[in-house]
């Protein structure tokens, strides 16, 4: 692969295939930890670290791991890295550990990480996989930061704890505000994507590792089943 190719692996995650805004993955942490900009960065960096490490290891082991136990093996590796990151954060940045709470260990089930393992790292050499992980991680962090800044600015009147607005609209840091801001950001991403002539993903989980048997299938199966019952 040429140098140009490597660069592409890195940049695609940031804009064109942004995991949060375009592939709509990892929605739970996106909504939950973006109550402040600093939380968003903490989560983004932690997930990026896990993503890079797991991508690298999985890609290195891609010929060793038997296909049958692929998913459990990936999950074990990811869970291992998540725990390591969690312990490091606890030891060296305890404040971040306190504010991210349960969402730090829950990086394990963040679809972005398993999704990249299944779709990219399991099929590609180590270096592109690391770049892919880095790009996706940066894209994830950027989207989180975007949400975090908007929600903190409107909800607490501050950004990174610095008071900027004289008023605050509390609802933005409460759960409904999270859904609303996310909806608006996706709308914006869709608009930009349509303008650029790219295909717009309309449902979440399109890039999910379980997409094969995920929501769409469940929905379709449900419909099929319902149809069968009618017959």
């Amino acid at each position: 692969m040429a140098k140009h190719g490597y660069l592409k692996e890195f940049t695609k995650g940031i804009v064109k295939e942004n995991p949060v805004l375009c592939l709509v993955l990892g929605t739970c942490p996106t909504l939950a930890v973006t109550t402040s900009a600093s939380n968003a960065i903490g989560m983004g960096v932690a997930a990026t670290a896990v993503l890079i490490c797991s991508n690298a290891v999985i890609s290195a082991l891609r010929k060793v791991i038997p296909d049958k136990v692929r998913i459990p093996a990936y999950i074990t590796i990811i869970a291992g890295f998540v725990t390591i990151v969690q312990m490091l954060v606890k030891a060296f940045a305890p404040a971040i550990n306190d504010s991210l709470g349960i969402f730090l260990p829950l990086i394990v089930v963040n679809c972005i990480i398993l999704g990249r393992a299944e779709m990219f790292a399991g099929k590609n050499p180590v270096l592109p996989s690391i770049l892919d992980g880095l790009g996706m991680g940066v894209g994830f962090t950027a989207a989180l930061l975007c949400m975090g800044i908007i929600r903190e600015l409107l909800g607490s009147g501050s950004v990174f704890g610095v008071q900027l607005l004289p008023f605050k609209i509390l609802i933005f840091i409460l759960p409904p505000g999270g859904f609303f801001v996310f909806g608006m950001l996706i709308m914006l991403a869709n608009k930009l994507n349509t303008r650029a002539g790219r295909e717009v993903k309309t449902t979440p989980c399109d890039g999910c590792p379980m997409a094969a048997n995920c929501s769409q299938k469940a929905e379709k199966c449900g419909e099929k089943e319902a149809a069968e019952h009618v017959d």
Partner: protein
Amino acid sequence: MLIKSLVAVFLAAILTENYVLCKFLGICPFLGVSKKLNTAFGMSVAVTFVMVLATAVTFPIYTYVLVPAGIEYLQTVLFILIIAGLVQLVEIILKKYIPSLYKSLGIYLPLITTNCAVLGVTMLVLQKVDSTTLYDYTYLHALINAFGAGIGFMVAMVMFAGVRGRLESADIPKSLKGLPITLVSAALTALSFLGFAGVVDKLIPLS
């Protein structure tokens, strides 16, 4: 006292601590599988089932194996593997012995492994054991909590499926179509759950 605290735990898990709308866990299926009422319901039943089963297994393992051995740090790895294994096991058992149930729940089971609500329930309940001071948080409380969390998931899913049903016939601005409008309506649904704040404490005063 025991019954009272159990009811409080159950109601809190459904209303004030709703895993989807208040804690943002299990958003993927919430957005993905809530288009049709029957699939939303089927998914919720499967989630509830796995949540209770997973808590039933992980809670004693954590309390009686991991803590005494001082290896709490294996929690994440072990729990996710237990959940993944359990889901497989349930699938196989259902397929073999209760095919009718398998037919209605089977398709949802593989999706549940990566549902963060299940892992979230099994992990968050362990923190509650430490923070509950009014009464002893027992194994039974943990199970009731898991069951309540599942029912809460169901309430959110079914409610939301209803909202989305109305959206089908609504005239939506072009750029809002699809996910954006879904999220905006999720915001409104979550808003209604904010009203439950403090309701359980008032209904069932424990102190």
